[in-house]
């Protein structure tokens, strides 16, 4: 087994475990912590896939900004932990689980067709996934989507400010 395989397997186990814990935990703060662990393991998976810049951005944007925002809001609201683990009674929950298993089985049917010769990784050069190569592609072939993403973020920022703002006295 190569180092990459060990790293990827470990990260996969951590990712699945933390994802399960996100759903299982009652407290939103603990869930958020496990989600951070999940994002970290996915960053390691990106590393094993040759996405060096991608992994750094994953930590910087997802773990460093989005999840901090989550925790900040959870702390700001500080909701009392809910008593029930799931929203519905045991029957509906069981049926949902059954549906989930069915959904997973149908997904896996598609995934399994990748096994064997059709699912080998292409061999790539040293510069695969480097900052320069990703940046060049982003600013040439994907320039318009990139700018649109900027506009999207601007709209989201304005929207967030408008939504979360307390109304000043005298406004309706």
């Amino acid at each position, binding site marked *: 087994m190569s180092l990459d395989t060990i790293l990827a397997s470990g990260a996969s186990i951590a990712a699945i475990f933390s994802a399960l814990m996100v759903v299982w935990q009652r407290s939103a*703060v603990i869930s958020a*912590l496990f989600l951070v662990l999940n994002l970290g393991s996915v960053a390691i998976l990106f590393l094993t896939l040759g996405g060096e810049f991608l992994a*750094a951005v994953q930590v910087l944007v997802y*773990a*460093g*900004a989005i999840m*901090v925002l989550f925790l900040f809001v959870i702390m*700001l609201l500080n909701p009392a932990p809910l008593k029930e683990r799931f929203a519905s009674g045991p029957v509906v929950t069981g049926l949902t689980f059954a549906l989930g298993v069915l959904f997973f089985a149908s997904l896996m049917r598609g995934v399994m067709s990748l096994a064997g010769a059709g699912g080998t990784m292409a061999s790539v050069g040293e510069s695969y996934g480097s900052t320069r190569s990703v940046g060049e592609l982003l600013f040439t072939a994907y320039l318009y989507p990139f700018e649109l993403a900027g506009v999207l973020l601007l709209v989201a920022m304005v929207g967030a400010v408008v939504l979360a703002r307390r109304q000043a006295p005298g406004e309706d």
Partner: protein
Amino acid sequence: MDAAMLKEIGEIVVRMLIIFTAVFTGVGYMTLVERRVSAWMQDRLGPNRVGPQGLLQPLADGLKHLMKEDVTPPGAHRMVFILAPIMVLIPAVLSFAVIPIAGDAINLQDLGLPWDWQIKPFIADVSVGLLILLGLASLEVYGVVLAGWSSGSKYPAMGALRSTAQMISYELALGLAILPVVLTTGSLRLQTIAEAQAGTWFGFVPHWNVFIHPFGFLFLLISIFAENKRLPFDLPEAEPELVAGYHTEYSAMKFVMFYMTEYSAMIANAALMVTLFFGGWQVPGLVLPQPWMFLVQAGAFAAKTFFFLFLFVWVRWTLPRFRYDQLMNLGWKVLLELAFINLLVVAMLVAAGVM
């Protein structure tokens, strides 16, 4: 295990030993420097009883905190309460892994040691080192939030809310202040950035980024003061309002871990400023045979870093504390815009081929 593998592991262990020993000694002695320098500025003596000039004071402090009672408040979330100090300390210490302390690797045989090991001047050679540093800095927020949340008491919660808001706000300005350097150097690897600052102008002005990007440096300096929660921006732990902020409920070794985090983050940020804007380990015009070159460069790096650490202490006893709304206004309405304009101007100059 064959000899080649042993050699590789040995090399990694030695460079980790060098850098982390330096960092932890630095952290310990920074507490002493802080107390002695503040005493000097206020015309007092400061701790000078333990050892010559008080040099053993950090050891005494550590021993004292080790033997203190470790209190967990009854309203605390026990597991997260223990996890929080660990989660602040690890990213702060990890950030030293990518900072280069000298130019070329050194061979241990040059120092008269029996092993033929090449010791690189950094622990990890990462091509996105600067992004890693920024990412680790943003991960430090977690420990602070969790410390405030898990203490189950009001002052820590308030302090944690304040410090999270402050750290998120100033992170943006910090990133934008650094970007002009990346633009002109064309690399996110810290060693490449340091190497690009070799040489001089007119034979005496060193080719340091601070002379190319004075505004970038200024913005970085201000945001680092805010990121480290140092005076004049130490509102998260403003003692008249919030007791000690997010670590109010912590005692004994857990408290020490917050303290160590503060100082190691300070040293890391000072080292970052030196690497990005003051030539890192560069000593202009110096050429020496290998073992000496490495030692002098590492010494120069330490001296430059110490200057900024001294600056942190100096500013602490010079400027009064900001109000919280002033702090937020400065971050979002002044610093962020100025950093953006600076980046825009540099980008245009680079595009025009001037830089």
